[in-house]
């Protein structure tokens, strides 16, 4: 608490973290590139410089509020400092604004305008780095990077991964994945949060609108679109409507005008997920394993578990995400209703999410080389298509979605916000366990926006220990506590993005991220309230689907169409390490995994024993010994691969057995 003077105005402050926040709360939009309240303070961009009486010029983001400070945010000197900083950034920045997808939402462009930068006195940079389009979700253009480090801190601090970091130094400095590799070849989980926070066009959502147009304009193709819950409360922002205002009807209308054949709701398959997942959960609770039950509708979270927590793979719900359930039903059942072949159907998802682009390409979701979901567009891309079509979105007459997959309950709609999946499943579980529907507010305890929310809920006789998490760094913390036995829970919901899908990286770029998320989530809860039904089971179209196609939740048919299994996954594509290479072409290749998981389980000792015994057995000439980095079977490590044989759980005691296998493969007499 205290009082400061800002530009001659007395301003009270309370618990603000720094002078920058006090100034902004006082209504002055002090410019910044590198300050974000959810990340650590970096203080590199120098845009937030202010004059403090008695101290001189300081970075406001770095200065704690103090009673009696007298501050000026604008002076000839400060304007000069900002302009020079901007000019220097612009000199190094590829200024191809007209072809940049962030034109209009770029902070650099915005501040250059605000500070009236009319020419740049410094020369353009001479180096041009290649554009990295290897990721299914994002495009990285290092030529537009201003080295603010926002993405580095986002990936490290919020997602706990650290895919990106500064590399090299001086004029060579870049922000890059490990070893200068491409984003598609490293441990990135495609959440896109780095792109959502990047102030420029250095990291952007991969745009695939042309493919969508091609399908829509092809007369022989039936185009089926599904709209995720979170899209309806955010796309309006692109057309000057308030965030949180639900515009489902306008989206449907726009898509029809554009030429899409059927418009459906992913909330419908979310309802279906609720039935399948609750059935699965109740089974696990009954058998007491494997618990905790993990939700699996966030593809970034799934990839994260595959890479970092293979020991928890069986905890992941086998339910496909609502997006993939939709694709599967549309292609393999609904196409028959329409009397067309699945090959003539093109399924487009509109998602708030960049990781969904990756999910749709996963091997699990291709059938005879055709994908269940052909194309994933983000909210941003759909907005661009609507503008391309030339529609005045805000004036469109709302229309309803198509049947049968256009009908959703409130439970399916709240999937778009953190805690929503849990709440929807709890509502249904309550009915399954007690035979009664819950009170409307029974499970509101799971709502909120803290990174981790732990709640115990009583359903009938049963107490359910629940954790709702958003942000993968938070998930890591919780998983470590579960591993060490400090925490024990029954259900874990994880969404990688802050606030859940409404905060997805495919959503319109928001200036005030927290506030926008709050409005969007309020919008979804409001929609739940106004819809007639709040229990997924009551969805008449869902019942219909069970009657006609699936039987009942958890049936063999629903397993075939709506469930899957995930396996462990290597983090970085790279070579294995040569330990001892025989030049003989007939030599057997023996790989000992020294990836994280196997290393921790003692594979180094194993490697040493093996080398010694290979030598003792006089087999050195016949063996190519290599240290592999992750054989993607971490749960059963240490792993050894002898030729084509994969052997798991190997200890030094098993080495004689390995030698045996080597001899067999060499067709040597077995000793």
């Amino acid at each position, binding site marked *: 608490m205290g009082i400061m003077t800002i530009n001659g105005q007395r301003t009270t402050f309370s618990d603000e973290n720094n002078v920058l926040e006090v100034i902004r709360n006082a209504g002055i939009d002090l410019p910044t590139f590198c300050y974000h309240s959810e990340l650590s303070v970096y203080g590199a961009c120098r845009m937030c410089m202010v004059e403090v009486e008695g101290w001189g010029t300081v970075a406001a983001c770095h200065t704690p509020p103090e009673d009696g400070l007298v501050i000026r945010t604008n002076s000839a000197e400060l304007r000069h400092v900002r302009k020079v900083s901007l000019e220097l950034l612009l000199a190094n920045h590829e200024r191809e604004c007209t072809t940049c997808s962030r034109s209009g939402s770029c902070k650099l462009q915005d501040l250059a305008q605000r500070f009236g930068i009319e020419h740049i006195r410094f020369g353009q940079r001479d180096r041009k780095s290649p554009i990295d389009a290897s990721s299914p979700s994002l495009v990285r253009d290092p030529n537009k990077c201003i080295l603010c480090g926002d993405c580095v801190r986002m990936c490290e601090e919020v997602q706990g991964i650290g895919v990106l970091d500064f590399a090299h*130094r001086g004029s060579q400095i870049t922000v890059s994945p490990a070893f200068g590799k491409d984003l598609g070849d490293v441990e990135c989980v495609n959440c896109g949060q780095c792109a959502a926070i990047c102030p420029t066009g250095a990291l952007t959502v991969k745009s695939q609108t042309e493919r969508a147009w091609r399908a829509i304009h092809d007369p022989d193709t039936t185009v089926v679109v599904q709209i995720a819950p979170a899209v309806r409360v955010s796309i309006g922002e692109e057309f000057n409507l308030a965030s949180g205002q639900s515009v489902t009807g306008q989206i449907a209308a726009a898509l029809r005008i554009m030429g899409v054949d059927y418009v459906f709701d992913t909330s419908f398959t979310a309802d279906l997920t609720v039935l399948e997942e609750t059935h699965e959960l109740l089974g696990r609770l009954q058998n007491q394993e494997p618990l905790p039950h993990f939700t699996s509708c966030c593809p970034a979270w799934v990839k994260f578990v595959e890479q970092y927590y293979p020991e928890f793979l069986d905890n992941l719900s086998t339910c496909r995400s609502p997006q993939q359930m939709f694709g599967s039903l549309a292609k393999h059942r609904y196409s028959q209703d329409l009397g067309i072949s699945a090959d003539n159907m093109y399924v487009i998802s509109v998602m708030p999410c960049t990781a969904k682009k990756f999910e749709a390409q996963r091997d699990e979701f291709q059938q005879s080389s055709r994908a269940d979901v052909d194309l994933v567009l983000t909210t941003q891309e759909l907005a661009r298509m609507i503008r391309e079509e030339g529609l005045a979105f805000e004036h469109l007459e709302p229309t309803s979605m198509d049947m049968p997959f256009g009908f959703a309950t409130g439970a399916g709609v709240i999937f778009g916000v953190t805690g929503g999946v849990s709440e929807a499943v709890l509502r249904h579980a309550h009915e399954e366990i007690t035979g009664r529907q819950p009170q409307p507010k029974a499970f509101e305890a799971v709502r909120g926006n803290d990174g981790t929310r732990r709640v115990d809920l009583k359903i009938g006789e049963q107490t359910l220990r629940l954790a709702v998490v958003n942000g993968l760094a938070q998930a890591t913390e919780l998983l470590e506590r579960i591993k060490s036995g400090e925490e024990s829970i029954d259900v874990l919901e994880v969404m990688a993005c802050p606030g859940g899908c409404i905060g997805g990286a495919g959503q319109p770029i928001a200036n005030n991220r927290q506030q926008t998320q709050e409005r969007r989530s309020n919008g979804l809860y409001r929609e739940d309230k106004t819809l007639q039904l709040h229990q997924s089971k009551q969805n008449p179209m869902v019942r219909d689907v069970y009657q006609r196609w699936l039987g009942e939740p958890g049936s063999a048919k629903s397993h075939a169409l709506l469930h899957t299994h995930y396996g462990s996954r290597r983090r970085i594509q790279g070579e294995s390490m040569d330990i001892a290479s025989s030049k003989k072409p007939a030599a057997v290749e023996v790989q000992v995994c020294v990836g*994280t998981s196997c290393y921790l389980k003692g594979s180094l000792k194993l490697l040493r024993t093996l080398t010694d015994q290979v030598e003792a057995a006089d087999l050195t000439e016949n063996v190519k010994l290599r240290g592999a980095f992750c054989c993607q079977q971490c749960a059963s490590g240490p792993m050894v691969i002898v030729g084509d044989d994969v052997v798991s759980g190997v200890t030094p005691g098993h080495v004689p057995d390995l030698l045996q296998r080597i001899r067999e493969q060499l067709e040597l007499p077995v000793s």
Partner: protein
Amino acid sequence: MLQTTANRQLDILQRLDNLVQRYGKHSSTLIPMLQEIQNAYRYLPEDLLTHVATALDLSPATVYGVATFYAQFSLEPKGKYVIQVCDGTACHVRGSMPVYEAICKKVRLVDGKATTEDGMFTVETVSCVGACAAAPVVTINGEVYGKVTPDAIHVILDTLESRGDTADA
């Protein structure tokens, strides 16, 4: 020969492991580990860097960032002979650049590359090795040669080549 490479690899893995045991799984153990690898191989192979990241629970990008920040580390394999030409002020004014060019020409280095195609020589410039009295100075695998001229360099390199692989580190 086979066993030598195997032992060398296992040795370095063991030594890295010892460092982790000694200093703990902290980011401050990173530099000693990188130095260990650099000493053993004269560069930092990617696979070992991934291993270091794994062992310290750091992201590979962070390890890469540190490895590329310090000039003492190299990400590229270096030649058998690492020739460093001092280009500090004293050496520069005494003609270190003609010496540098003479070396590049002699070992047939092309296109601004630092290492010859046969992996024999790496030629780099460094700033002040602290032997200004003997300027211009060249070091070859750490051994210092003073008052070097473009002509002298031919003699030095010819002797090295005739000595064969005795200078193998």
